């Protein structure tokens, strides 16, 4: 019998083009996703060197980071944002790359539209000039973020230089308690293994809790692999994956044959991982970050930690700095922290299930008069689906703003930003200083926790929520 191999091993072996002596191996890239912020210099490089895009039919682009989420018929107010989006449009035209432009019904956050159109498929290698490319690993692909020079390299050669990453299995046994979401799970895991726990590795999430997650919940988990320092996160494809993909625009024509192939990808029993960590789903409570990195996270039912209680000098120093930036005192109950803003969106939590989850909390309630709350769907499709289900009316009647698709206040490159000192409950993935606007204070939470906070004006344990349905 041949040696048991992991999902990562199988995808890796299949994609090594060559491994010349003294060089890093070249691996083939099946799908290359492109957005406006990290690609202009790459296309410019091609142009200067007189090179073409090797596989334009495997390259797809959309503007998402910079785009306005208000009326799209108006010209983009910021001339530099406009220039970046125009540049993407011109580059796609010149190099023959398919673009889902601002006025396209399928435009959206690149990591939301890839899976929803069926571009993302099990067993693929996928790259994008964006660290949250890890999201696509939820479908059993090896997907990771690259820099702009590598974007140019992939455009020109459809390959990438890569040393094989280490493998890290994160197994989650048991069951999640009612009300606990994929977001709580991944924040919990990051809190446990730290923001650099996954450095140099690809995480494979396994175990009964992961198997029971829906496809969209799996995307939420894989999305934040980078916040644990990992190159990528992945989940072996199974019936959930195949059911999700069936009938999507770019799904293989001979779907059953594809499924038969994809079934071979799951890690073999007894395969080797460089490291294994085991957790229990039952230990996870609703999570809220209190600091300025995603591992600075606690349960909603506790208090802001005292830096003095932390183990290492570096952790104490980071925590002290973070509390100062966040304007929080050690010992404050999490549920006593008041909010100014609520943001439901981003490639972590802007898909239809996220919006359904938030709408269920919001239904029959009103947004606190102290809070300004917004919902930004991840894509044009998500937006239309939500509107068909009447979710937009639930949000708007409660006092939320309902926006057009894009990255929006996840990073505030467009006009959606926090002001100095504003405190936000956000369903995004990064709480770095200034991430949502200079001086802004971000707390990462799940969609239902964000929705509840919008209603009450402070963090609220979703497990005791008064649902009106």
């Amino acid at each position: 019998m041949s040696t048991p191999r992991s999902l990562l091993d199988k995808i890796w072996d299949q994609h090594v083009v060559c491994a010349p002596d003294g060089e890093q191996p070249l691996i083939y890239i099946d799908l290359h996703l492109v957005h406006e912020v990290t690609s202009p210099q790459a296309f410019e490089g091609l142009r200067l060197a007189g090179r073409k895009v090797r596989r334009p039919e495997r390259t797809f682009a959309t503007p998402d980071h910079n785009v306005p989420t208000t009326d799209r018929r108006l010209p983009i107010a910021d001339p530099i944002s406009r220039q970046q989006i125009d540049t993407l449009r011109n580059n796609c035209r010149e190099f023959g790359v398919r673009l889902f432009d601002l006025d396209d019904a399928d435009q959206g956050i690149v990591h939301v539209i890839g899976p929803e159109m069926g571009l993302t498929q099990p067993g693929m290698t996928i790259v994008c000039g964006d660290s949250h490319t890890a999201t696509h690993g939820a479908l059993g692909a090896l997907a990771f973020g690259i820099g702009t020079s590598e974007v140019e390299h992939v455009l020109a050669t459809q390959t990438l230089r890569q040393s094989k990453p280490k493998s890290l299995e994160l197994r989650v046994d048991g069951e999640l308690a009612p009300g606990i979401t994929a977001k709580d799970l991944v924040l919990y895991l990051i809190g446990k293994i730290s923001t650099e726990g996954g450095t140099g590795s690809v995480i494979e999430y396994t175990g009964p809790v992961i198997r029971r997650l829906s496809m969209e919940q799996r995307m939420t988990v894989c999305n934040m692999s980078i916040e644990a320092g990992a190159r990528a996160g992945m989940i072996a494809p199974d019936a959930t994956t195949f059911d999700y993909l069936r009938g999507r625009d770019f799904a293989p024509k001979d779907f059953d044959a594809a499924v038969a192939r994809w079934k071979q990808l799951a890690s073999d029993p007894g395969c080797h991982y460089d490291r294994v960590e085991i957790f229990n789903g039952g230990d996870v409570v609703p999570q809220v970050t209190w600091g300025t990195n995603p591992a600075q996270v606690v349960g909603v039912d506790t208090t802001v930690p005292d830096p003095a209680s932390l183990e290492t000098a570096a952790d104490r120093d980071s925590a002290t700095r973070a509390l100062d930036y966040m304007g929080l005192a050690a010992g404050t109950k999490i549920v006593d922290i008041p909010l100014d803003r609520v943001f439901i969106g981003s490639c972590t939590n802007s898909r239809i299930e996220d919006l359904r989850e938030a709408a269920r909390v919001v239904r029959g309630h009103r947004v606190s008069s102290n809070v300004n709350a917004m919902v930004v769907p991840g894509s044009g499709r998500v937006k239309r689906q939500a509107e068909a289900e009447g979710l937009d009316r639930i949000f708007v009647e409660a006092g939320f703003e309902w926006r057009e698709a894009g990255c929006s206040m996840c990073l505030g490159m467009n006009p959606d930003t926090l002001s100095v000192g504003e405190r936000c409950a956000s369903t995004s993935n990064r709480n770095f200083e200034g991430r949502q606007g200079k001086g802004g204070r971000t707390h990462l939470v799940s969609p239902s926790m964000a929705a509840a906070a919008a209603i009450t004006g402070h963090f609220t344990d979703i497990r005791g929520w008064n649902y009106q349905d």
Partner: protein
Amino acid sequence: MEPFTIHTGVVAALDRANVDTDQIIPKQFLKRIERTGFGEFLFFDWRFLPDGSPDPAFELNAPELAGASILLARRNFGCGSSREHAPWALGDYGFRVVIAPTFADIFYSNCFQNGILPIRLDEADVDELFRRSQAGPYRLTVDLTTQTIRDDAGFSRPFEIDAFRRRSLLEGLDAIGLTLQHEAAIDEWERSHGVAQA
């Protein structure tokens, strides 16, 4: 790419862990479509006060560090986004070397694409360098040919680096040009995996 062989320069010590790319180059400066001109925005939100003047409390603003070219930092440097604007800004500002106990993966590999050498050293050695750099302008020599780092007061350590990356930096190799030497292998991979030939 500018080759990297031996570099001697002044060390700027940034005593913080988990320095993320949002701090290295904040998002409002990612809208440019060029690779150059990012140096003036490096660490922008830390470097400048709201009125636009340099914040005297920020480490890099110390007058004696004006020409620093070696950045010393703590764990997990460069975590966060894949933005290559981070090494572009560091390079444009004048940094050729970054020393830290650990780096985030994408940032680490982006450095090599831009002639910047990221060096991982043991935490204890990094502590020692922080101590030595406290006394005023402190100079280090980084020698990629021998893979060593040293000062003129007895500190000398070897460092590890992937052999291919080392060669790429030493020779200032054009990564795409090198890959295209394997074009036949790429064609062959595509043929055997049913990728439609153009």
